[in-house]
């Protein structure tokens, strides 16, 4: 009846996951109870869960990412403390648990923390910056989000029911094959990523379509913000790369479930094919994350320097250059598999060529600051921290692209330090910069600057204290994923990294405090103008938070920095543009399709993991039925009357009149 699922699946004998899991379950139940008792459930269902509004979906993505970031961070704390304790000792985590933790850390951080935050920020900002009302396929967007949530849920269920993969975050066969991993861990990994991967692919299709086909009048390609350009590049990469991931993991699933031999040791399979395929996805994935991060920094640095981005076209070229070349470098992840001099040299050189594009970007940001009038608000501090940190991470990255150096450093803590250097210094700092930057747009009040700055400085210092020692440990030969070790020379460095993680804990606490304090002080931090940072692109041309339809009338774009130009014109002429003629606006209706589909996909995934075949059939049929039901709908849109549009826009114009009065004396 329930396949492999019995009471033994719950780790009764392991206090750490049991207690952690129970606490999580209790918190979730408490939140649910609070929501139900307070009567928020109908509101949540109507305004959020079934919402197809790109801004709401963006916020939910970012929230999911932030919660998973915390989960992944707890894994990181456990790893660092285990290694600090496990010198000539067993530490407190047995190997079968420690191996799950580092596998879950990588999986969660990449797929369920970094990706949702990046996609969330794209969701929120791209349509606003393009000056349009929504993405191309709003209901698909909602479905993408809920499928990502399905993946995150499955990974977290593995904490209390069964186990997670013990193979590392990229489940290399043969280790991930049935003979060496007979447990359910790898299955959790496979189905979580197969289901959420479909969601990500749909996001990619959605955003490529949106950016290519739906832009405000006058918004030509070379008037789009760099964030839109990087979003385009990242989503093109998603569309091209995620099918490879899905196909690769599907082949591994066939190996495990139906005794296929794609990657086995016998019957003609070859595990090297898996490693090639997974990195053919995996390296573009790095740029899927970091290109939008570059976009965020471009917005922030330009806004807070009070200058347009330096060499805009060069920036566009560098973005698309990186997008293209990122496909030709995957082999640098396994120089030590013995491919030979020619192959290694080719991929080493192509990898270092990417540094040209990145270098160009760094210099363009540098010259954006040159001659600027830089305000060091929290988003700008994150950007400065990024610039310095990323240059160092880029250097160690190019170093690892030199095959003979990689022969010494591959899989060492030097490598671990390198990719954390670029992912924390690049993607995570961008996430915090982007969240602080767009938070007032999303919620109508700014985040508390004091706590934000403390969080920044602690994160920056904590990062260096954790990862610089790991560079040294790697140079001392320490390989990654060690549950315990006996080499005395490594110990001091591992201990310093352990101290660094304490600083990081303080930084994370400050982040949380920042949100709590800001929400409590929201009336003082209120932004009435819709333009709290003196912004330059179109998202600042509407109210904070924007109405469901974003803009009362679609903006007329005449240059690279449309909102900056609108503001200059207003100051020059000392009046706002004439009040437009308001018309009713058609917006897509909310739909529970995404949520219900994801519910049945979760059921299917769980059933596949535990071999509950009847539930697999039920889940697939039901998920498809939801799609059919959605496809048969008659009414797809609702209309917002012109009066309501006018009421909203007049209120906004009033705020802008006040702003104009304050800037009356300012020269254009």
């Amino acid at each position, binding site marked *: 009846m329930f396949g492999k699922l019995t009471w033994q699946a719950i780790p009764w004998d392991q206090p750490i996951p049991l207690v952690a899991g129970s606490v999580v379950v209790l918190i979730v139940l408490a939140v649910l109870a609070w929501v139900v008792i307070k009567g928020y459930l109908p509101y949540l269902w109507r305004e959020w869960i079934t919402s197809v509004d790109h801004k709401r979906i963006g916020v939910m993505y970012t929230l999911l990412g932030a919660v998973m970031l915390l989960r992944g961070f707890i894994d990181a704390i456990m790893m660092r403390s285990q290694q600090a304790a496990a010198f000539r000792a067993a530490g407190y985590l047995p190997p079968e648990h420690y191996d799950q933790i580092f596998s879950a850390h990588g999986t969660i951080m990449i797929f369920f923390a970094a990706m949702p935050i990046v996609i969330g920020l794209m969701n929120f900002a791209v349509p606003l910056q393009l000056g349009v009302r929504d993405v191309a396929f709003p209901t698909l967007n909602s479905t993408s989000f809920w499928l990502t949530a399905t993946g995150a849920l499955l990974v977290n269920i593995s904490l209390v029911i069964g186990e997670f993969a013990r193979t590392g975050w990229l489940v290399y066969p043969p280790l991930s094959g049935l003979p060496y991993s007979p447990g359910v861990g790898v299955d959790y990994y496979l189905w979580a990523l197969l289901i959420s991967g479909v969601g990500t692919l749909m996001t990619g299709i959605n955003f490529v379509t949106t950016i290519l086909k739906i832009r405000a009048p006058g918004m030509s390609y070379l008037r789009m913000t760099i964030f839109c350009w990087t979003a385009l590049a990242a989503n093109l990469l998603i569309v091209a790369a995620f099918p490879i991931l899905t196909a690769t993991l599907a082949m591994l699933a066939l190996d495990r479930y139906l005794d296929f031999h794609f990657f086995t040791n016998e019957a003609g399979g070859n595990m*090297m094919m898996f490693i090639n395929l997974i990195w053919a996805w995996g390296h573009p994935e790095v740029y899927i994350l970091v290109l939008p991060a570059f976009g965020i920094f471009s917005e922030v640095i330009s806004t807070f320097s009070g200058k347009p981005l330096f060499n805009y076209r060069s920036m566009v070229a560098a973005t698309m250059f990186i997008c293209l070349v990122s496909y030709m470098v995957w082999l640098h992840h396994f120089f030590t598999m013995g491919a030979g001099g020619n192959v290694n040299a080719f991929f080493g050189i192509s990898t270092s060529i990417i540094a040209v594009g990145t270098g160009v970007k760094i210099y363009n940001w540098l010259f954006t600051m040159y001659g600027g009038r830089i305000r060091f608000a929290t988003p700008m501090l994150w950007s400065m921290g990024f610039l310095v940190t990323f240059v160092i991470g880029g250097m160690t990255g190019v170093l690892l692209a030199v095959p003979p150096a990689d022969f010494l450093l591959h899989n060492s803590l030097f490598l671990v330090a390198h990719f954390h250097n670029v992912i924390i210094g690049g993607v995570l700092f961008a996430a915090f910069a982007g969240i602080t930057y767009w938070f007032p747009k999303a919620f109508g009040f700014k985040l508390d600057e004091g706590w934000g700055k403390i969080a920044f400085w602690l994160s920056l210092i904590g990062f260096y204290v954790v990862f610089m020692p790991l560079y040294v440990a790697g140079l001392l030969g320490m390989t990654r994923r060690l549950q315990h070790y006996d080499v005395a020379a490594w110990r001091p460095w591992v201990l310093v990294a352990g101290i660094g993680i304490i600083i990081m804990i303080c930084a994370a606490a400050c982040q949380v405090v920042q949100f709590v304090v800001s929400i409590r002080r929201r009336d003082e931090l209120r932004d009435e103008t819709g333009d709290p940072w003196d912004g330059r692109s179109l998202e600042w041309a509407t109210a904070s938070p924007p109405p469901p339809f974003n803009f009362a009338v679609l903006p007329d774009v005449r240059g690279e920095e449309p909102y900056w130009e609108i503001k200059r014109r207003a100051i020059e002429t000392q009046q706002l543009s004439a009040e437009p003629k308001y018309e009713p606006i058609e917006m897509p209706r909310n739909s529970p399709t995404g949520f219900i589909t994801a519910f049945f996909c979760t059921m299917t995934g769980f059933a596949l993991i535990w071999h509950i075949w009847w539930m697999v059939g039920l889940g697939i049929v039901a998920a498809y039925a939801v799609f059919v039901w959605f496809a048969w709908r008659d009414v797809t849109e609702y209309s917002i009357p012109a009066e309501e549009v006018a009421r909203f826009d007049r209120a906004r114009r009033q705020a802008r009149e006040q702003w104009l009065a304050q800037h009356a004396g300012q020269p254009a």
Partner: protein
Amino acid sequence: MRGGVGTVKQLPDSRSAVVTRPLQRHAVPCRMSAALIALLSVSGCSGGVLDAQGPIGAADAKILLNAVGIMLVIVVPTIIAILAFGWWFRASNTRARYRPEFVYSGGIEVVVWGIPTLVIMFLGGVIWIGSHDLDPFKPISSPDKPTEVQVVSLDWKWLFIYPDQGVASVNELAVPAGIPVHFSLTSASVMNMFFVPQLGSMIATMNGMVTQLHLAADKPGEFYGQSAQFSGDGFSDMNFILRAVPQDGFAQWIATARQSGSALDRTSYLALCQQSSNVRPFTYRTVDASLFNAVVNQQLPPCPGPNIEGPGATVRPRLER
């Protein structure tokens, strides 16, 4: 930059083995990198990859340091410029000129594309030559015939077979100092990575495939070796000692090994095959000459994974301790 691209040095005559310490001879191209180099030097004298004890490791480390040097030439000024521009153009600095119209410069564009391109072209040369010179499959040129060692990674221990001497050892590897060693490597189960940090290049071991590696130790010593590819629950104990011994010491070691221990035939191999971790080093007195090839071409099946008979073993298999 003196020294140029690292190449594999010819091994000196084994009787007068000269210690090669690339760090001490290495010319540092950039003074501003002193702090970083100091850090590297700290790690250089305590058994890491920069404390190379053989020609391959020395050449790898030399390329590593050269590449760092080449990149520091632009990285350090860039970081200084970032901090300097940020500081000088702060909004509160009234002496800094606000130039919002400074958004394009053809000259700067040429420089920002040009300098990284030139650096990467230079580095590309280093990569091309280094990849070929230090390809792990490439033999070390030496007047001495290399010692042959066949390596089999097992869950979770290392089996070293000496085909010419007819002995084998587990988790202990003795080689004559000053003479190249030719490793042929495979795996009996999952993928691992053979790595002796102080001797240089690592290489993967994979079931059904043979990789090659050439290393040498300059002088006698004991070197830590490990797997550098996570391979399962017993991975952390999958390390070994590489003992580089003088030539007569090696002959002695072989003689001792021949007199003690059991015989490694297919039966005892299947026993060794079972998953086990933290295995103390031991030797086999004789070895089936066809064993390595039998593992490679799958005449001997891949070693088994965890036992799946017990309750819950297909849900959460446990390492037996």
